[in-house]
């Protein structure tokens, strides 16, 4: 390394570590990634179960929850019949757990930690101990959030967006402790994300192996780099807002309380100034993973690698100037609304580049439909739906009737489940062999994919239509509205599909653990990949990742290159060791290395 480097932390430590240092307070980025994986999958499951309870109420309003109904307390669901305040907590906590405790750590905590050092050829993160801190601080945050279910007054029930003044004064909801725990938990969780982001950015900037130029970085790492910037700059905004809201709740500062001059819209502005970058935090790493998987499983270079990078950066930048599209009907200045509308709609352009480049990658490829590839292709097709529904809402006049209806719920699940979660499934099944040394069971994997894909569309596609017809979101009992009663059978159908969907996830859970212990042993590079983590690092990679510092010679997506007889050309393979095809090509027509 040309730069002076801290002696502690960057060099690989090769001595034996005890159980605690290996599995609990490990500083190895790969172990931390696995810890994040297990913790956030647990929260994902919890979020799914909360959705199940919610769907019960929506599909069968007022009927007692079967089987487990008796387990609920008097203040939540006496006799299994859900109370409205409990329903509000369910919606809030479903959104909160899914966004902050499941998808965000799955994207950043898991893939940021696991992939970045391996893909850039570094032995570990720049700050391994900070990394340990990043994981372990998220655990108390999670516990505090869970504790909210037990306190008097119930858990926070103001939605994951916690609009003030509803969230700012217990007088309006009867929830005091729950809301405070919600605020404290997210404040603490912010430190986890923040330290992670500092680590990822420093690592990517300063610790790339020789030859790993910016435009030879694999796209997952590029996406994680840009995402880390979003985290770095968006999370503190949220932290500031949370703290002010906490002061409003506890000592009555009144920032957002109109009674004393505060401004409710200010909360919305600050929240969404964080919130919209946040939704891109939730999808950009997924786009990176999907690019990698599609290129590999099509045995073709990523179509337009450079424009993919440019698109990631422009989505991230545009993401900062569109937050007002969540506030078109909020009473915001309509002129401001117009400018937000225009910037929002323009985001479709870099998104279009991404979508078409994925299709370009598949075009004339040699497609292998392994489990990760299925999920990746599902990601592309579902993101198109979710993105296109975004265009309706981005048009402020059309947003008037559909704002705060199930149309929004449909949109957000298409981008978050169809987008982020499918990308995560793709990532888990793709890197599983690297992480655990065993293949992810393909049969069950495919079964899980197809069941999920169909059930998921059955659950969320009809919601577009319900929203158009005025089905308001966050309502506890749609059957109380006469005009929604005609939709009740559709609601019931959706609920059945949702139960089925959640049950299908058990296949995944089973397969996950079964493959971990019983799966077929993986070879070093089962996907014939070019990137360093597969082509060079052993499976599973040891502490310190690489035996020696890798030297990188070319871009990550040299699949089916005419330069080589193999259909892949690892990044670290010196040019003189490439198996060249017998027929020399005329000079000048040689494709360049990136």
């Amino acid at each position: 390394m040309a730069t002076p480097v801290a002696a502690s932390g960057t060099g690989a430590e090769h001595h034996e570590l005890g159980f605690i240092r290996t599995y609990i307070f490990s500083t190895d980025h790969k172990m931390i990634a696995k810890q994040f994986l297990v913790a956030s999958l647990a929260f994902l499951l919890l979020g799914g179960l909360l959705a199940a309870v919610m769907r019960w109420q929506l599909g069968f309003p007022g009927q007692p929850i079967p089987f487990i109904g008796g387990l609920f307390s008097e203040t939540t669901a006496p006799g299994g019949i859900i109370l409205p305040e409990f329903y509000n907590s369910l919606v809030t906590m479903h959104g909160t757990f899914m966004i902050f405790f499941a998808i965000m750590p799955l994207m950043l905590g898991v893939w940021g930690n696991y992939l970045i050092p391996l893909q850039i050829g570094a032995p570990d993160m720049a700050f391994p101990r900070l990394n340990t801190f990043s994981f372990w601080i998220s655990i108390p945050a999670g516990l505090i959030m869970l504790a909210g279910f037990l306190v008097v007054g119930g858990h926070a029930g103001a939605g994951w967006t916690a609009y003030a003044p509803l969230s700012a004064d217990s007088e309006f909801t009867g929830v005091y402790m729950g809301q405070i725990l919600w605020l404290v938990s997210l404040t603490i969780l912010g430190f986890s994300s923040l330290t992670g982001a500092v680590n990822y950015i420093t690592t990517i900037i300063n610790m790339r192996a020789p030859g790993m130029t910016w435009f030879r970085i694999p796209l997952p790492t590029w996406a994680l780099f840009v995402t880390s910037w979003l985290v770095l700059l968006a999370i503190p905004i949220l932290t500031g807002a949370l703290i002010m809201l906490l002061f409003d709740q506890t000592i009555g500062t009144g920032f957002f309380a109109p009674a004393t001059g505060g401004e409710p819209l200010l909360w919305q502005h600050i929240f969404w100034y964080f919130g919209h970058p946040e939704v891109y935090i939730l999808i950009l790493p997924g786009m990176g993973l999907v690019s990698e998987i599609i290129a590999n499983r099509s045995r073709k270079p990523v179509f337009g690698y450079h424009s993919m990078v440019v698109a990631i950066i422009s989505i991230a930048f545009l993401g900062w100037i569109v937050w007002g599209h969540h506030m078109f009907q909020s009473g915001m200045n309509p002129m401001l609304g117009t400018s937000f509308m225009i910037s929002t709609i323009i985001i479709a352009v870099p998104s279009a580049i991404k979508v078409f480049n994925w299709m370009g990658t598949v075009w004339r490829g040699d497609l292998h439909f392994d489990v990760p590839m299925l999920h990746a292709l599902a990601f592309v097709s579902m993101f198109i739906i979710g993105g296109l529904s975004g265009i309706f809402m981005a048009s402020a006049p059309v947003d008037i009737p559909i704002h705060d209806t199930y149309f929004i719920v449909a949109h957000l699940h298409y981008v978050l489940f169809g987008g982020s979660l499918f990308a995560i499934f793709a990532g888990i099944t793709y890197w599983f062999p690297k992480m655990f040394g065993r293949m992810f069971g393909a049969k069950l994997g495919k079964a899980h994919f197809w069941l999920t894909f169909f059930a998921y569309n059955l659950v969320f596609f009809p919601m577009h239509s319900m929203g158009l017809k005025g089905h308001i979101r966050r309502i506890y009992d749609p059957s109380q509205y006469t005009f929604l009663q005609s939709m009740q059978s559709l609601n019931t159908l959706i609920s059945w599909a949702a139960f089925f969907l959640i049950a299908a996830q058990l296949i995944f859970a089973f397969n996950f653990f079964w493959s971990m212990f019983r799966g077929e042993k993986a070879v070093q590079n089962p996907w014939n990949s070019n990137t360093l983590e597969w082509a060079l690092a052993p499976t599973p990679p040891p502490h310190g990742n690489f035996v020696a510092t890798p030297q990188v010679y070319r871009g990550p997506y040299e699949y089916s290159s005419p330069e080589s007889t193999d259909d892949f050309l690892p990044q670290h393979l010196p040019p003189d060791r490439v198996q060249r095809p017998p027929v020399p090509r005329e000079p000048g027509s040689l494709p360049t290395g990136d």
Partner: protein
Amino acid sequence: MSSHTPAIQENMMVHDSTYEPGIQVYHMKLGMWVFLLSEVMFFTSLIGTYIILRFAHPDHFAAPGEVLNVPLTAFNTFFLICSSVTMVKAFAAIQKGDQKGLKLWLLATIVIGACFVGIQAIEYVALVHEGFVPAAAEYHALGRTGVEGGAVLGGPLYGATFYTMTGFHGAHVSIGVICLVFVLIRAMRGHYTHSDHRGVELIGLYWHFVDLVWIILFTIVYLI
């Protein structure tokens, strides 16, 4: 590996371009800068709130000097600026390998920094005594209903924003003082040398950043 490589060069096409360095600073320093950028955003949310609320409700805020004690705080600002220069002197000292200078200047920084926090505490106590409180509820409990009435000018938003902003700044200073104490202890153990003094540089960056925030805060909170 050469000891000095030119800054980032885009040699994407060459197959064996050897090494593209990152930013030519060590990890901790880069990490500290990156972290400070997030601090910028944190203070943006607090200061931004203040600016916006003040713009929306000018009647809640008083003219400079009417409520806040400008001379006292100007003096305190002087203190903080002094602590910045002592900090930078400490760094300059160790760059030259001057251990004694390092320790003395660090000690001076700690003392001045602690004084800043102390004076801020005195200021808070005095202000609260005058009825300038952070919470609207207490504000009303003091029997002041409107914007004009009572001993203190301004409305509840004034106190709320004031204490939140300056309070978080003060917390940052306090954390800085604690870290400086650790750096001083390490300095006394001879941990830093003229060639490796990263700890001093890092705490210096943080300290100057906190100073920088104060420069902004002092102007927009006390003077505008």
